[in-house]
């Protein structure tokens, strides 16, 4: 069964690389085909990679606080470039300061992200949600195969 491709990366001028490496590890072992762009990724780079690899979802990380600025217009750019269907997730320390998560979530949902996650989210549950969302949007046949506990992560960027 073909694996669904997803794009990972940390947006903007953000250098936080540890969480990104863990996301790659987890989503790979959860059966996705992970294209990890590493840190400091621009919106354009995300979109290009998604087009090139025919990805089903982009998982944007932002840790350093500028997420609110960096993510503006992300959905528009996707649509502009013809990625009408693409699933957009975003997670991390998305805004500057400690804010109630509900406020943050609303903000990023308004920007067009399908799901928004706080830093302590359980990644296995995210993988589960992602499988569901892909199924819903792209139909049964496109769904990622079930969990592959032994899959070792594949490097797609020397940045990692």
């Amino acid at each position: 069964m073909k694996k669904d491709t997803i794009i990972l990366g940390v947006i903007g001028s953000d250098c936080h690389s540890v969480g990104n490496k863990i996301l790659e590890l987890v989503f790979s072992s959860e059966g996705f085909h992970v294209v990890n762009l590493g840190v400091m990724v621009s919106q354009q780079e995300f979109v290009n990679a998604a087009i090139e690899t025919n990805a089903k979802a982009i998982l944007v990380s932002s840790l350093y606080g500028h997420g609110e600025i960096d993510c503006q217009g992300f959905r528009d750019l996707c649509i502009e470039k013809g990625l009408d269907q693409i699933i957009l997730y975003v997670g991390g320390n998305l805004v500057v300061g400690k804010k109630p998560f509900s406020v943050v979530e609303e903000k990023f949902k308004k920007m067009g992200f399908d799901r928004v996650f706080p830093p302590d989210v359980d990644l296995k549950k995210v993988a589960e949600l992602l499988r569901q969302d892909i199924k819903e949007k792209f139909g049964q046949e496109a769904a990622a195969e079930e969990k592959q506990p032994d899959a070792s992560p594949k490097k797609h960027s020397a940045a990692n």
Partner: protein
Amino acid sequence: MIKNEKIDQKEFLEIRKEVLKTWPTGQKVSIEEGIRYHRTLPEEKRFSLAMLKAQKSRKTLLQPRAGVALIDDHIKLLRYLETEGEADLLPTTIDAYTRQNRYEEAEKGIEKSKQAGTSMLNGFPAVNYGVEGCRRVVESVSRPVQVRHGTPDARLLAEITLAAGFTSFEGGGISYNIPYAKRVPVEKSLRDWQYVDRLVGIYEENGVRINREPFGPLTGTLVPPCISIAVGIIEGLLAIKQGVKSITLGYGQGGNIIQDVAAISALRELAEEYFRQEGYDDIELTTVFHQWMGGFPEDEAKAFSVIALGAIVARLSGAEKVIVKSPHEAMGIPTKEANAQGLRATRQAISMVEDQVILKPEDLKTEVDLIKAEVRCLMNKVYELGHGDVAAGTVAAFEAGVLDIPFAPSLYNHGKIIPMRDNEGFIRIFNKGNLPLSEEIMAYHRQRLQERAQAEGRAISFEMVTDDIYAISKGKLVGRPR
């Protein structure tokens, strides 16, 4: 090829012209005026003096991190940390756009912050505010202020903030590149930091001592002490060559108390040794201990204990300064209140153990000796690769993976070494990548890791590393199997 040589005045001035052009505020910078201003600063605003006094009186000074987008808010913030937080030393933490020299985005961030009525930047965009704006900050507080950032090319930032009267500048060509950037060649950042150090040297030659502080913790995540110590010594050597006299070398808490205290000991002894070896015996060398730099627990009560442990160990290590975290660490840039809470908790913890002698040199000997032997392995190879030149050697070392920072984002870093904790929480090296550590040393590391594997009833595996990365944020030091 880069060399560890003093930049000559002519070359410096040529580069300088270009640097100052990169943003309008650069045009107003005058080193001479800066020097004149520094000479008017009272003693209690001079960073190097404060560090020296701390060393003489065996004190550990407290410094927070803090920076917001708008200048008045930033001043309010620092004043609050001074009064309510009783900080001994003040920071000005620079925002991440400025760190990447993206001054236009920083400008936008300032605008958006004005609109939003709150900081939309994760730090203070000093370049955009120029000498004048920055000097308002220096003028508004009564303690020494340091620029804290993470900027691979900090030349303009240094020109502006030093001329404005900041008396200490953090960073270095390795420590502000590899953990903070993706595409900056090591040689480039080393050169740009030679510039910064030379600038400090010029101030020094004019009687103005600026303190320099390489960034010890690197990625803050399972960094074996030998790596951060080697990097600190190299950056120290490079700075000294450009004329820097006041140096504070740093180390980020690893979590095991013995290892942390031993690391500061080894750092101090080795740095003195290497500085002397390169012919310098007039360096004011001090140390700084960073409270836990990895992932924090979200719960504030738990975060307070991480802070307290860091404070206690900072004090036991005898470091002259401790960089303080806040109970908001896991969540976001702290409010001024949370920041001051971190300071007050740290003060209490330090003061309670200040007079106590718990660890004697003998208790630490094994670990200090180990760390020293490891650092010597790394340094020897760096010198060898550079044919005796530490700058050239560093570039070659990163190319060869002889220096390798775990979990770093830089494309110029091998990222091959795999660190993990042993059964007592010491950070050990499982896979050394290309680090030139002796077989004997690696055998010891493996043996200690084997003890853990046995205790946990699982083979040494990459899973241990991820478990270790999460461990403190989930309430433990060693990431035991769940």
